[in-house]
């Protein structure tokens, strides 16, 4: 019974993808949509295969990956550090947590022109922009994680004579670790999207730039090739990460 239900839902999901592909095919082949908006699938595929063989494809990917990595590392280090410092006292947690949370509710994209002003249109402005965006989830989720550790564990550790650092090292950190990992994941995907966004808005290189350039030069096949590439990459990454998380949860 269960298998059958699974089969039905899977079929619907496959059917959805098939319909999307069918619509794409139908629209382009009947000429309902001009290839300027939506080029036929086979042309996009051929463009992609040609693109992969060029050096510019890999250099764009390399720039973007390197930018993401830098931004993410900065975001994680800064976020963990701030969360650690803020949760040292209840008072400072109460002062800073709402401040950080409400800053994150403002579209930080507004700061993008400032980063362009400071760092120019090279990768540095994208690193700064994505690190800023990526910092908040790490800090907020880690603060929440450290604060939600069961107080009984802390009292138990204290009763056994643990120092403040011992308590952090052996109780707070391990107890909050799964939550902290969530923060790192969220931060990664936000950094990822922010770098691509920054590159799309204003950049000299990278995948985002390649997409906006293709649009500007009216090369829709190339633009779609890039878009499909990014979508597949993002969805696969998501899939892998949630598979890892599900496995971790089983243990």
């Amino acid at each position, binding site marked *: 019974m269960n298998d059958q239900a699974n089969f039905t839902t899977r079929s619907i999901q496959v059917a959805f993808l098939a319909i999307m592909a069918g619509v794409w095919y139908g629209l382009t082949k009947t000429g309902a949509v001009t290839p300027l908006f939506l080029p036929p699938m086979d042309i996009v595929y051929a463009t992609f295969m040609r693109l992969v063989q060029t050096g510019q494809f890999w250099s764009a990917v390399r720039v973007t990956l390197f930018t993401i990595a830098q931004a993410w590392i900065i975001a994680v280090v800064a976020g963990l550090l701030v969360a650690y410092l803020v949760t040292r006292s209840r008072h400072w947690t109460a*002062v800073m947590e709402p401040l950080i949370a409400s800053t994150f509710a403002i579209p930080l994209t507004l700061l993008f022109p400032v980063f362009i002003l400071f760092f120019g249109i090279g990768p540095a402005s994208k690193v700064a922009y994505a690190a800023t965006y990526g910092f908040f989830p790490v800090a907020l989720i880690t603060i929440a994680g450290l604060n939600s550790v069961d107080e009984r564990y802390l009292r138990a550790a204290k009763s056994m004579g643990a120092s403040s650092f011992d308590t952090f090292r052996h109780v707070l950190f391990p107890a909050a670790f799964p939550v902290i990992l969530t923060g790192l994941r969220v931060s990664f995907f936000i950094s990822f999207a922010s770098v691509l966004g920054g590159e799309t808005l204003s950049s000299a290189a990278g995948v985002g730039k390649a997409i906006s350039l293709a649009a500007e030069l009216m090369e829709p096949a190339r633009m779609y090739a890039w878009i499909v590439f990014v979508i597949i990459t*993002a969805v696969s990454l998501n899939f892998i990460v949630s598979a890892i998380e599900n496995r971790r949860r089983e243990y």
Partner: protein
Amino acid sequence: MTVAAARVPAASTPSFIGGMSRRAKVIWTRRLVLLGLVVAFEIYARFIGNPRLFSPPSAIVYALFDEILVDPRIRGAIYQAFTEVLVAYVMAIIIGLVVGLSVGWSNFGRRSFYPIVILLYAIPQVILLPLFVLTFGIGPACKIAFGVSHGIFPIIVNVVAGMRNVNALYLRSASSMGASNFDLARHVYFPHMVPSLFAGLRLGMTLTLLGVILAELYVSTGGIGYWTKLYAETFDPAPLFALIAVLAVMAILLNELVRIAERRFTRWRN
């Protein structure tokens, strides 16, 4: 919540605010932190920082009243962005509710269509921005559409989540008292969904703002994007910061409106 208190004695708070309640202390410390940041920024920008990059807050305030708010073109651009956000948000709520309710209504819908929603949510939508411009042009339609495309996902996801896990006992109890299907929807499903719905509406507002502003910045031939680009390229930080501040205040006010509505409708949760 009380974790940190167990570790740090109350005496560690500065003694000059010792007479206040805990809550007042928190609020005043927060104000001091913000004031300290402004003062530090002022000193840095005035005496140390490169004036082509940094502008002291006092100069930003001056630019706000001298350049930004007096220029009808800039005022128009701000007003237009504001309208775009509102229209996009209302559309995102309507579409998000309709899609969320239809997907979340049955187990079948949840199991079949929810993964598709999650899949679409995982796409970094910003790469579609050039496509939106190609499709909708460079006018408000494009920015509204991009805002909607960002705003609907958290609303759908939270509406679906809110329809799950309705306590079966509430349903059974209501039916035993003679509740109709409409009664169940009105008095059980809907109130149960409200907290989750508001979580979605809050995130939806943040993302709608993000979508609209991304599109505004991308289209640099007019609107907000034109002015930020102009100021950044001419190394004129004061009006740039002033313009950003106006938009940030707009975002804060809109977020706060959603929050007030949320507090009004979820009082029962304590």
